[in-house]
């Protein structure tokens, strides 16, 4: 057992303090804010990276379209039946597509060592990770929300619910990105974290799914959707307040190995 | 007493399969957790004792 330490600091400390007096000191910096600079740079960096690898941005969208194609084939092409299940199908498929891309949120940063550097920045880690999540939503959740109405047409989604579908998805996927990022941060240090990530995150997605799909259904039945959207907004506000701290704490755990 | 006889008690007014399966599974799980905890404890202490004895005899041989 290697338990003891040989010749720790006694060997040279006295002599080195003498040398320390001979040399001038490098001026120490005061930490002077710059949080906005750091957040902006992180946003720009992640956007640039993802836009250079367009495949990664497109894959969730293709997955979304593919899954939606499977349902009429598996169930029935009957427009009336499809119209009934369309809100739920669209929401579940979008949710899975958003989940699919989560695993890579911190993975490449972890692998190349820049996550370590992110944690050592003299800025609040919560704010920096929020920037990363924002980019994830901008390039996954938002495109999914914009694409959903097109797939809605293919599922014979009744008129009048398209705007609500896109809006509820845009609001909801933002919460999904935030909650999912906690799971991604917890599993980033694990070699095969992908499946585990879904297991951790999917139960937490249920409230968003209920009110998101509920909003579209309410729109179809001609009921008021403002309550649903308000709750989705409240969920987003709560996630915005709490998730960044959980993400930061999780990242610190993962970096410890 | 809600039942007139023991056989009536067992029959649970025709709901016997449901009542007894629910209670049975519960009892089984509770007992299983206790048994598992006991087995776990015994095994641990046994392992620790074996280790201590080995350490003891090693010390004895050295002397």
């Amino acid at each position: 057992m290697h338990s003891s330490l040989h010749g720790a600091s006694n060997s040279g400390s006295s002599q080195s303090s003498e040398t320390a007096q001979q040399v001038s000191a490098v001026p120490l910096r005061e930490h002077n804010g710059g949080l906005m600079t750091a957040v902006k740079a992180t946003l720009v960096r992640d956007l640039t990276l993802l836009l250079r690898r367009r495949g990664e941005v497109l894959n969730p969208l293709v997955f979304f379209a593919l899954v939606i194609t499977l349902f009429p084939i598996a169930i029935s092409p009957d427009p009336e039946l499809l119209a009934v299940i369309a809100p739920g199908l669209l929401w579940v498929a979008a949710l899975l597509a958003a989940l699919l891309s989560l695993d890579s949120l911190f993975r490449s940063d972890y692998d190349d060592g820049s996550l370590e550097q992110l944690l050592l920045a003299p800025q609040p880690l919560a704010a920096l990770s929020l920037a990363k999540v924002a980019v994830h939503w901008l390039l996954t959740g938002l495109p999914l929300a914009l694409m959903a109405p097109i797939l809605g047409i293919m599922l014979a989604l009744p008129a009048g619910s398209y705007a609500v579908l896109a809006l509820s998805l845009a609001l909801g996927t933002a919460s999904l990105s935030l909650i999912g990022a906690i799971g991604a941060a917890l599993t980033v240090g694990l070699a095969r974290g992908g499946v585990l990530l879904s297991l951790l995150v999917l139960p937490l997605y249920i409230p968003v799914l209920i009110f998101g799909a509920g909003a579209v259904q309410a729109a179809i039945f001609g009921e008021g959707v403002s309550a649903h959207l308000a709750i989705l907004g409240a969920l987003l506000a709560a996630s915005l307040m709490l998730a960044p701290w959980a993400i930061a704490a999780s990242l610190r755990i993962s970096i410890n190995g | 007493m809600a039942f007139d006889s023991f056989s009536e008690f067992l029959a649970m007014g025709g709901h016997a399969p449901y009542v007894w399966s629910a209670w049975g599974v519960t009892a089984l799980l509770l007992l299983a957790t206790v048994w598992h905890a006991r087995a776990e404890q015994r095994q641990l202490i046994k392992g620790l004792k074996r280790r201590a004895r080995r350490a003891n005899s090693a010390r004895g041989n050295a002397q």
Partner: protein
Amino acid sequence: MSLCLQARQLACERDDRWLFQGLDLEVRNGEIVRIEGPNGSGKTSLLKILSGQLSDYQGELFWNGAAMNEAREHFLANLLYLGHAPGIKSGLSPLENLAWYQALSGESGNEDQRLEALEQVGLAGFEDVPAGQLSAGQQRRVALARLTLTPRALWVLDEPFTAIDRHGVVDLERQLVAHAQAGGCVLVTTHHELTASPLLRRISLG
């Protein structure tokens, strides 16, 4: 203001095994401190503890006399840590990589500074090549460009000589000595034998 990083009775246990125990350490300006020890003796863990990344340790850390918890932000503002992985994004050019690192500490900086830093590490002409197309040694040099680009008093370098050619090793070693002479401080682990210098101090683990 002088610089002082102190560790008192530092101990690190990793899954029932003590990596080190009762370690007292004081690092001041004008020093190069080399942490030595065989593989698995906890060199990287020690550097991670000293750079505030690992919280799972016993003992106390002080930065300029203040407990690390309270001085953390000031400490991080004066720290430059380079780990095993260079932390270079393969999808970004060296210039873009450096720009992010500069911004992380709150400085926007300008392109001339970054170009100059890259030139100093011998990467002139590679400024706009995606870092993924550079060799491992060149990527390491991009990371090392941060030493001149973002001046920090305390350098914590984990195996900085990895993948660097002989010429680069000499340059880097000279840079470490110059930093210490200028009053900075270097904490380093390396398998490369550093030239003896009055500024160099060794600490062995394990």
